[in-house]
């Protein structure tokens, strides 16, 4: 069994019990430079390691880019 989630609009499968911090590590992302929204609610940086991914979760992972 895997947990199916959506990350930035892409479908992904993760192992059950994985946390958001686990996912970010597997993606190679530096958590100091990003922000995460889960089902349209911000997940504070301090909670990333304690928040387990659930079936159907929709994540947005963003960072700053050039803009006017």
């Amino acid at each position, binding site marked *: 069994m895997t947990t199916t989630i959506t*990350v*930035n*609009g*892409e479908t992904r499968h993760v192992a059950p019990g994985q946390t958001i911090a686990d996912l970010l590590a597997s*993606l*190679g*992302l530096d958590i100091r*430079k*990003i*922000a*995460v*929204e889960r089902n*349209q609610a*911000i997940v*504070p*940086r301090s909670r990333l390691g304690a928040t387990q991914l659930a079936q159907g979760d929709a994540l*947005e*992972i*963003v*960072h*700053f*880019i*050039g*803009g*006017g």
Partner: protein
Amino acid sequence: MDGIINPAADSWTLAGRVFHSRLIVGTGKYRDLEQTAAAIEASGAEIVTVAVRRVNLSDASAPMLQDYVDPKRYTYLPNTAGCHTAHDAVRTLRLAREAGGWNLVKLEVLGPPPHLYPDMAATLEAAEALLADGFEVMVYCADDPVAAKRLEAMGCCAIMPLGAPIGSGLGIQNPAMLSMLVEQATVPLLVDAGVGTASDAAIAMELGCTAVLLNSAIAHSPNPVLMARAMKHAIEAGRLAHLAGRMPRRLGADPSSPLAGLIR
């Protein structure tokens, strides 16, 4: 020493922070991040606008803006570019606050292309939600004195009307309206959008604007670093001209040399 102004001492205050440069620059549309960094350095800006976007999941090692434009040196001003609803704008800035920890933000809620004109109903709605959530809101808006006054009364920390459509480079199309906005403003009043070249920035400052926010005029110049320098000087020149005060206009000549003592 009457009338001598030291530009270094000419500061302005935004949401309790003191700034010396009156030029805010965007970080978009450059060839690469090296050029972005060089142009910002040349502009002398202390505040830079940044956009919030999805990370590239397929290449997490791609260089990031923060690696080139140090958030410890420059005040990052997250924007809501691309947001066409109040909901999206508020969501975007909550993410920005989490990513960077900054409360100072630039709100813009835009109508559709080709004008991308500020959607003032949605802008007011988003401003209300952001202010209630503890944000310091600099707001991009129409050159509408009634809406501007309302945004100010709500608690926005800077009012930022356009001089011309975003990215158009058409210059200051509305000097009379901007003057009225400047006159009534009790918080910083910035021109945000429309500046195409250095003289446009100088005109905005001569009208009495607190500062100018621009991006394309530098990034789309064939030589962005040189244009960034030009903008720095134009902002300073316009500011000094505003402080000095312009001579009265007259419909006719007035000789600059004395008429007495002419040879006969």
